[in-house]
């Protein structure tokens, strides 16, 4: 069959016209899915490292009878992706996230207080507090993630070092454990500021923002404690530049470091590889007002205010993260290792009642702290920059903290927290 030039041009033009019309059509991916299950709901998750998590959340979505829930599994800079998507109409209906105080104040997320009616007391209070602003709840906590100090018992025994219970002991232990091939401590490839954040302040007994909305670390104890961290760099006790960062236990498992700060999620793998040759500790306290500190955080299920099916999205969130306790237990414990956000679930989980996991649950209950919503991104960034200069470069802690206190105070005024 021969194709004439006119025919070819005509077909091309028709195809181009069809494409253009299709592109201008109404199929934005936000309409009803046609599955007969009700409206279509887009649910975004960040990419989890644990195998099986994606398949699990897809299974939960398929099981929901009253909407056609589509899961988007998003790798990369997830928080920034959701922040940008919330500015548009093509973002998610439901997403896991903070949310941030500015997202709440900007009306980007939906109040979900009513979803927790009757079960509010069963959610971990520290974690629920980070989702609560002016008495309203803006996300349903999914699981609790916590961080802790892992140490190799054999390495400590070989160097005659006791598990460190104070910050001074931690600094001394890191130095004593450092050899030509093994470093004493791994706090992440940036040397600590990125992951430790407010933990040393809480270890000194200082919150970042007090309950009445004031700066909590305008205190000489803050400078004293942060200053001690510089010794880790000066003594060359820290592992720096490892192939994987703090959240991955590889450096610890490969024997590159004797102690590592990492997440609870790493515990099953560490236990599998090292057996009994490891222990866990909270970040040790410092000074007379100090106490051990265990950072806790939790992504929550958040409903976007720009979603087309807000009521349906809220109903789905309630089904999955409030009523669906079997899904929460499966999500928290079957793939990685997290503590269920519901206290009743955490108590009955067999995996959390023995060994190191039980210790971590106890640390979290006794010493857990969560960064409050009033600790805004701008305050956190200013503090983290100062912390980096203090611990890495040995900058004067008092001089570095002064502008951070001023910045935090101004942020608290901006969001209407401080008087």
């Amino acid at each position: 069959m021969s194709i004439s030039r006119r025919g070819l041009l005509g077909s091309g033009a028709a195809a181009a016209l069809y494409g253009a019309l299709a592109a201008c059509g109404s199929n934005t991916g936000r309409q009803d899915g046609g599955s007969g299950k009700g409206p279509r709901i887009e649910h975004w998750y960040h990419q989890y490292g644990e195998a099986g998590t994606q398949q699990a959340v897809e299974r939960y979505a398929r099981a929901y009878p009253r909407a056609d829930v589509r899961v988007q599994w998003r790798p990369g800079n997830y928080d920034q992706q959701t922040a940008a998507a919330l500015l548009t109409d093509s973002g998610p209906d439901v997403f896991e996230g903070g949310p941030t105080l500015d997202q709440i104040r900007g009306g980007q997320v939906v109040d979900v207080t009513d979803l927790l009616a009757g079960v509010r007391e069963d959610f971990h209070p520290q974690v629920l507090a980070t989702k609560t602003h002016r008495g309203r709840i803006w996300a349903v906590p999914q699981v609790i993630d916590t961080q802790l100090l892992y140490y190799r018992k054999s390495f400590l025994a070989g160097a005659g070092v006791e598990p460190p219970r104070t910050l001074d002991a931690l600094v001394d232990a890191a130095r004593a454990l450092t050899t030509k091939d093994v470093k004493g401590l791994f706090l992440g490839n940036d040397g600590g500021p990125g992951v430790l954040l407010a933990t040393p302040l809480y270890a000194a007994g200082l919150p970042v923002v007090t309950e009445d909305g004031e700066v909590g670390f305008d205190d000489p104890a803050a400078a004293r404690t942060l200053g001690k961290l510089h010794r880790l760099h000066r003594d060359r006790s820290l592992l720096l530049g490892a192939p994987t960062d703090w959240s991955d236990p590889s450096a610890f498992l490969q024997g590159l470091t004797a102690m590592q700060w990492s997440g609870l999620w790493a515990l099953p793998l560490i236990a599998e590889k090292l057996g009994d040759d490891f222990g866990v500790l909270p970040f040790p306290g410092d000074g007379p007002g100090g106490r051990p500190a265990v950072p806790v955080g939790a992504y929550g299920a958040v409903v976007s205010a720009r979603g087309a099916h807000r009521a349906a999205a809220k109903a789905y969130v309630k089904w999955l993260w409030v009523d669906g306790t079997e899904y929460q237990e499966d999500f928290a414990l079957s793939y990685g290792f997290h503590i269920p956000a519901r206290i009743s679930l955490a108590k009955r989980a067999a995996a959390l009642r023995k060994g190191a996991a039980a210790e971590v649950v106890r640390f979290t209950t006794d010493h857990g702290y969560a960064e409050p919503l009033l600790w805004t991104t701008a305050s956190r960034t200013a503090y983290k920059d100062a912390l980096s200069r203090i611990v890495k470069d040995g900058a004067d802690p008092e001089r570095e903290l002064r502008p951070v206190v001023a910045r935090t105070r101004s942020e608290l005024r901006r969001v209407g927290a401080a008087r």
Partner: protein
Amino acid sequence: MAAVVRERPARRGGPVGQEPPPAGPGRPWARRLLGPQRRHLWFWVFTGPFVIGLTVFTYVPLGWSVWLSFFEARNTVTPAAADFVGLDNYAAMLRDEAFTDSLVTFGLFTAFIVPATYALALALALMVNRLRFAQAFFRSVFFLPVACSYVVAALIWKMSIFNGVRFGLANTVLGWFGAEQVAWLSTTDPPWYWLVLVTLRLWLQAGFYMVLFLAGLQRVPPQLYEAAAVDGARPGWQTFRYITFPQLRATSVAVVLLLVVNAFQAFDEFYNLLSDARGYPPYARPPLVHLYYTALGEEQNLGAGSAGAVILALLIAVATVVQARWFGLGRKEG
């Protein structure tokens, strides 16, 4: 084409006494579309889509960004009139130590990377230009890294060459000489991370500027070298100093301008080498990375971020104009 239109008969028969409709290209609409008098029409047919794209995706966002810079725009790109703050965002940005520090970081980076890339590219071009055999091969070898993405190159530099443990390539080589391991990207005293940043950019960019210099070198008339030889100029440094280098002036101006603008836009290697899931260390944070975190990161402060972008654009414009004046860009040769 125009001649064909005029020459072809418009009539092919039809009922007697009735003027048949003109056929084919002879029709009036076809004449209007295809005739030489419609050059403007065709100009817009071909350039229009690009103009629309440029307007929609570049100029409108640019204008919008300037407009946003006068508002308290957090988590929104459509602030209310009540959020108008005038020049407050500009004042806050200029008072923000993190932003001014990022400008200093950029200044240091530019002060080093521009002359280093210039010298390396010129040296490579001179060497390749003198080759009698396999010139195309070496030109390709040095040019190939240009095709590599910054992200991929940064990952290779970070994960295999300059990682901080004993099995990293750089540390393995140091180990052969009994030296201690170096945490290249985490050490601020001395600031080894600069070595990683600079070598990465040199590897990625030098080939492109080498090609520009090669083009410049091939435009130097051979008669000049012959005349210089007759006048007693020695080949090598003397010829380069008095003949080659001055003849490359126009290329040099273009290369330096491009290098400075590229340095201002530095983002990829800083971001990929030094950031992690928790953010970015304060050292070695160039302005674009800082603005990225302010406007598009968790902070979502689009008003302040836009103000910073406008300040940065003005700085680039001023630097470019000053530099162009300095080099005498646009001045007539001779």
